[in-house]
C-alpha cells in the first residue's frame, strides 16, 4: 500500500494537485472555523511570528534609546521619553513571554507535528484546540489594547504595590487589560497542555509505546504537565491582582495590612515553571534536530526523556530564587538555592547526551542544525550563569542588573533559536516547499553573531552595576550599550533575511519530498504537505532514531526506507 509509505510513491511527491490539508477546502471560514490541528498550528505560527516581530520591534526601539546615556547627551533619547521607554520594555517582556515564547513551540509547531509524530489523526479535542487559538487571539488583543488605555509600565512581572496603585488613567490604567489578557492567554495555554496530555495518553496508535515516542513528544508532554499544573496559579494571582486594583481587596497592599511579597510568591510559583514551559519543548526539538542532522541514533534516549520530567518536577520547587532580595527567610533561601543547583543536573544530562550524539556523527550543517548548535552554545552560557544567580550571596550583587537580563535572554532567546530551527526543519512538511539553504544558513549565522553581540556584553555591564530597566545610565556604560544595540540591529537583519528566505520559498521553492532530511519519526512518512486526515491507516511504528534503514533516493530528492524503494512496501 502506498499510503503506508508515500515517499515511495514517486508521482505523489510534491505534487500540489493531490489533496492535502492546504488544498482540502478553501475560503476564509475553512480556516477560521477549522478543526484540523495542522491548520490551527499554521494559524498559530503566523500569529506568533507576527507578535514576535512586534515584540522585537519594541526591543530594537529600546536598544536605540539606550545608545546614549542620558538626555543631556542628546541623540535618540528625545524620540522616546522615559515613560514611553518603561511601557516599551514592559510590552516587550509581556509580549515575548506570554504571547510568543510560551505558546511558540508547543502551540504552533506542537500542534502541527504532535499528532503526526504520534501517528494520530488529530489532537484529542479539536474544538478545544480551536478555542485555545481564539483565546490566544483575544488575550493578545487585550494585552496590546493597553497601549490605548495609557500603557503599562510595571514590567512584565506586575509587581505589587506598584501595579495596583500606579496607572496613567485612574483605576483602569493599562495594567488591567494586560493582566486580564495574560489571564486569557493562560487559559489558552492550559487548554493546549490539556489537549496534548490527553492526546499522548489516549491517541497513541498500537505499537507506539511511551519509549518509542520521539523525544519531542516527551518534551511536549513534560511541558503540558507544567502548563496544566502551574498556569491556574497564575490565573488566581492575576484575578487577585485585578480584584486588588479594581475592588481594593487589599491582599497585597501593605497599607491595608496585606503582603506584597505574597504576590511575588504567587507570581513566581507560576512564572518560574513558565521558564520551563518555554525551554522544555525547545529541548525536545533539539533532541530531534541533533540526532537527525548527525544522522546518528540519539544517545541516551531514556535519560533525555526522564530528564524532561525531572526538570518539570524540580521546576516547581525553585520559585523562591527570584526573591533572595525580597526579604524571605534565610532558611527558605538556602533551600531554594539548593534545589536551583540541582536542576542543573537534568539540564546537563541533556547537554551531554546531545554532545555525545554529535560525537562521530556525520554532521550536516543545514539551517536547522545551525540553530541547534547555536542553542547549545547559548543555552550552555544561559544555564551556567543561572548557577551564578542561584547563589544567594552573589545574587545580592547581581539582582536586577543587566547580568540577569543577559542570563534570561540566553535561556529564553535560546528557545527562539530552536523555534527558528524548528520552523526550518518542519517547513517542508508544513508548506510542501523547500527553502534556500544558503540564505537560511546565513540568517542563522547572523542571528548567532547578533545575539551574542547584544547580550554577552550585558553580563559584563551587569557585574559592574548597570541596573536593568533604566532609561538613563552613567557614561562609562555607553560602550557596552552601543555594542549591545549594534547586536540588536544585526539580529533585526537576520530576522528580515529569514522572512525573505521563507517568502521566496513559498513563491518559488522546490517542491518538498516526504522526507527531505532523512528523519525517522512518523511525520516524515506522510506526504509533504500531509493529507487532511494524516494517515488513512496508522503507519507501522519504527524506531524514530533509526537512520540505518533510510537511504537517499535521487528520484524523489529525499530519503526513503530501504527496501521500500520504488515499489510496494517490502517490509511490514
Amino acid at each position: 500500500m502506498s499510503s503506508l509509505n508515500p515517499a515511495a510513491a514517486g508521482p505523489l511527491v510534491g505534487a500540489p494537485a493531490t489533496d492535502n490539508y492546504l488544498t482540502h477546502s478553501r475560503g476564509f471560514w475553512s480556516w477560521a472555523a477549522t478543526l484540523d490541528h495542522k491548520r490551527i498550528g499554521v494559524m498559530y505560527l503566523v500569529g506568533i511570528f507576527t507578535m514576535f516581530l512586534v515584540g522585537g520591534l519594541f526591543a530594537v526601539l529600546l536598544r536605540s534609546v539606550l545608545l546614549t546615556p542620558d538626555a543631556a547627551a542628546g541623540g535618540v533619547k528625545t524620540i522616546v521619553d522615559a515613560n514611553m521607554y518603561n511601557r516599551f520594555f514592559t510590552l516587550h517582556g509581556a509580549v515575548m513571554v506570554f504571547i510568543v515564547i510560551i505558546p511558540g513551540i508547543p502551540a504552533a509547531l506542537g500542534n502541527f507535528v504532535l499528532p503526526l509524530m504520534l501517528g494520530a489523526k488529530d489532537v484529542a479535542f479539536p474544538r478545544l484546540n480551536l478555542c485555545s487559538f481564539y483565546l490566544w487571539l483575544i488575550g493578545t488583543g487585550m494585552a496590546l489594547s493597553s497601549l490605548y488605555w495609557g500603557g503599562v509600565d510595571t514590567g512584565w512581572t506586575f509587581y505589587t504595590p506598584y501595579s495596583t496603585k500606579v496607572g496613567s488613567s485612574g483605576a483602569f490604567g493599562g495594567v488591567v487589560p494586560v493582566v486580564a489578557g495574560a489571564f486569557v492567554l493562560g487559559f489558552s495555554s492550559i487548554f493546549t497542555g490539556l489537549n496534548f496530555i490527553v492526546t499522548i495518553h489516549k491517541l497513541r496508535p498500537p505499537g507506539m509505546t511511551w519509549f518509542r515516542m520521539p523525544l519531542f513528544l516527551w518534551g511536549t508532554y513534560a511541558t503540558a504537565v507544567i502548563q496544566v499544573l502551574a498556569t491556574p496559579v497564575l490565573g488566581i494571582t492575576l484575578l487577585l491582582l485585578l480584584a486588588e486594583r479594581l475592588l481594593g481587596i487589599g491582599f497585597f497592599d501593605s497599607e491595608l495590612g496585606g503582603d506584597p511579597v505574597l504576590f511575588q510568591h504567587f507570581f513566581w510559583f507560576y512564572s518560574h515553571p513558565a521558564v520551563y514551559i518555554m525551554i522544555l519543548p525547545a529541548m525536545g526539538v533539539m533532541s530531534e534536530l541533533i540526532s537527525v542532522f548527525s544522522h546518528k541514533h540519539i544517545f541516551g534516549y531514556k535519560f533525555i526523556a526522564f530528564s524532561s520530567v525531572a526538570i518539570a518536577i524540580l521546576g516547581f520547587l525553585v520559585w523562591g530564587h527570584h526573591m533572595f532580595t525580597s526579604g524571605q527567610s534565610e532558611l527558605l533561601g538556602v533551600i531554594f538555592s539548593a534545589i536551583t543547583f540541582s536542576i542543573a543536573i537534568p539540564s546537563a544530562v541533556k547537554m551531554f547526551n546531545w554532545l555525545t550524539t554529535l560525537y562521530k556523527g556525520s554532521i550536516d550543517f543545514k539551517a536547522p542544525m545551525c540553530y541547534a548548535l547555536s542553542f547549545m552554545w547559548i543555552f550552555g552560557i544561559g544555564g551556567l550563569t543561572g548557577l551564578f544567580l542561584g547563589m544567594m550571596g552573589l545574587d545580592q550583587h547581581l539582582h536586577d542588573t543587566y547580568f540577569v537580563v543577559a542570563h534570561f535572554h540566553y535561556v529564553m532567546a535560546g528557545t527562539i533559536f530552536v523555534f527558528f530551527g524548528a520552523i526550518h526543519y518542519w517547513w517542508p512538511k508544513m508548506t510542501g516547499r523547500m527553502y534556500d539553504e544558503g540564505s537560511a544558513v546565513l540568517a542563522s549565522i547572523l542571528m548567532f553573531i547578533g545575539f551574542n553581540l547584544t547580550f554577552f556584553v550585558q553580563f559584563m555591564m551587569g557585574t559592574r552595576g548597570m541596573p536593568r530597566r533604566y532609561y538613563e545610565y552613567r557614561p562609562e556604560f555607553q560602550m557596552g550599550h552601543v555594542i549591545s544595540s549594534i547586536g540588536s540591529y544585526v539580529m533585526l537583519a537576520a530576522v528580515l533575511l529569514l522572512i525573505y528566505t521563507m517568502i521566496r520559498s513559498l513563491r518559488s521553492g522546490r517542491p518538498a519530498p516526504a522526507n527531505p532530511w532523512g528523519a525517522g519519526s512518523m511525520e516524515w512518512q506522510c506526504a509533504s504537505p500531509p493529507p487532511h486526515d494524516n494517515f488513512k491507516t496508522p503507519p507501522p511504528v519504527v524506531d524514530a532514531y533509526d537512520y540505518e534503514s533510510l537511504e537517499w533516493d535521487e528520484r524523489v530528492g529525499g530519503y526513503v526506507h530501504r527496501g521500500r524503494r520504488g515499489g510496494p512496501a517490502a517490509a511490514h
Partner: protein
Amino acid sequence: MQMADAAHPISHAAVPHGDAHGHGHHPNLEHHFDSLTQQFDAGKLGMWLFLATEVLLFGGLFCAYAIFRRNHPEVFMYAHQYLDTTWGAINTVVLLVSSFTMAWAVTASQRGQRNLTSLLLALTFLGGVGFMVIKAIEYQHKFHDGLMWGTHYDPSKHGHGHGEGHGAAAHGAAAAAGHAAAGDGRGGAAESHAAGAAASAGAAGDHGASAAHPEATTSVHAPETPGQGASAAAADADVPPERAPLEPSQVALAPSGPAGLHVGGHDLHGPRPDNVHWFFGVYFTMTGLHGLHVLAGMAVIGWLFVRSVRGDFSADYFTPVDLGGLYWHLVDLIWIFLFPLLYLIH
C-alpha cells in the same frame, strides 16, 4: 467500572468493522477516534485534568487563607462570627442534594432513561438556583452591614444596619455624647453596652466622622432622640470611606470587658482586631469565585437538560452528562471545604 462496561460493547457494536475510511460511524463518534470507548476515555481524562486546574485555581486562594489565618488567627476568630451558619448549613445541604440528583442523572442517562435524566438535571439546576439565591441573601446582608473587603470594609454599618433592621431602640452613635448606655440591636436582642465601651464603640463606629470630622461627632451626634442620631450616623456611613479613616489606629475598637454583641445568636467576645477586612476579603473572593463556578455549572447543566430533552443521549452516548456531573461534583466539593473553613472555625 460500570461506565467502561457500558461503553465497551457499544464500541464494538456501533463501529462497523473493516471500514478504514470512517464512514458509517456512530453519529457521536468523532473522526479521529477509533472507538466510542477511546473517545469516552479521552473525554474523561480531559475533564479530570481540567478539574485539576480548577483545584489549583482555588488552591491559590486556600493558600492565601492559610497564610492570613496563620499570621492573624484573631481576625478569623473574630470575624467569622458575622457569617450566618444557618444559611451556610442550608446551602451545604442544598448542594449535597443537588450532587445526589446529578449522580442519579448520570446513572439514569447511562441506562437510557431519558425522562428521568431530564427531570434529575432540572432538579440539579434548581439546586444551583437555590444555592445562589441563599448566597445572594447572605451577600446582601453583608453589603448592608458594611462587612466587605479591603477598602470597602465599613465597621460602622454593622452597628447601624442591624440596629435599624431589627427595630432596636437605641444606637451606638447616641452614646457618642458619652452618656447613657446604648442598645445595639443585633440579632433582635437589644443589649446594653457598658457606657465606656459604647462610647468608644460609637466613636469608632462613626469611623469617618470621628476621624475626619471630629467636631461633627460631638456636635451633630448629640441629639435628643437616639433615632435621629442613628440616621445621622447612617447618613454619615453612606459617605464612601476614604482610606485614611480605616487605618488600624482609627478603626481599632477597644471595648475591653464583656461587651458582648449579639450576632445571629453568636456571642462576639473580645475586642475587634485590626484588619478584620482580610477575613471578608478572603470570604468574598473564595465564595465569589465559587459562586461563579456554580453559575458555570448551572449553564452546563442547563445545556445538558436541553440536550437531554432533545433526546441526544442514550445508553450508547452519555459522555457529556458524565463529564458535566464530574464538574458539578467538584463545585460541590469546593464548597464542602469552604463551609467549615469560613463558617465553622473555632
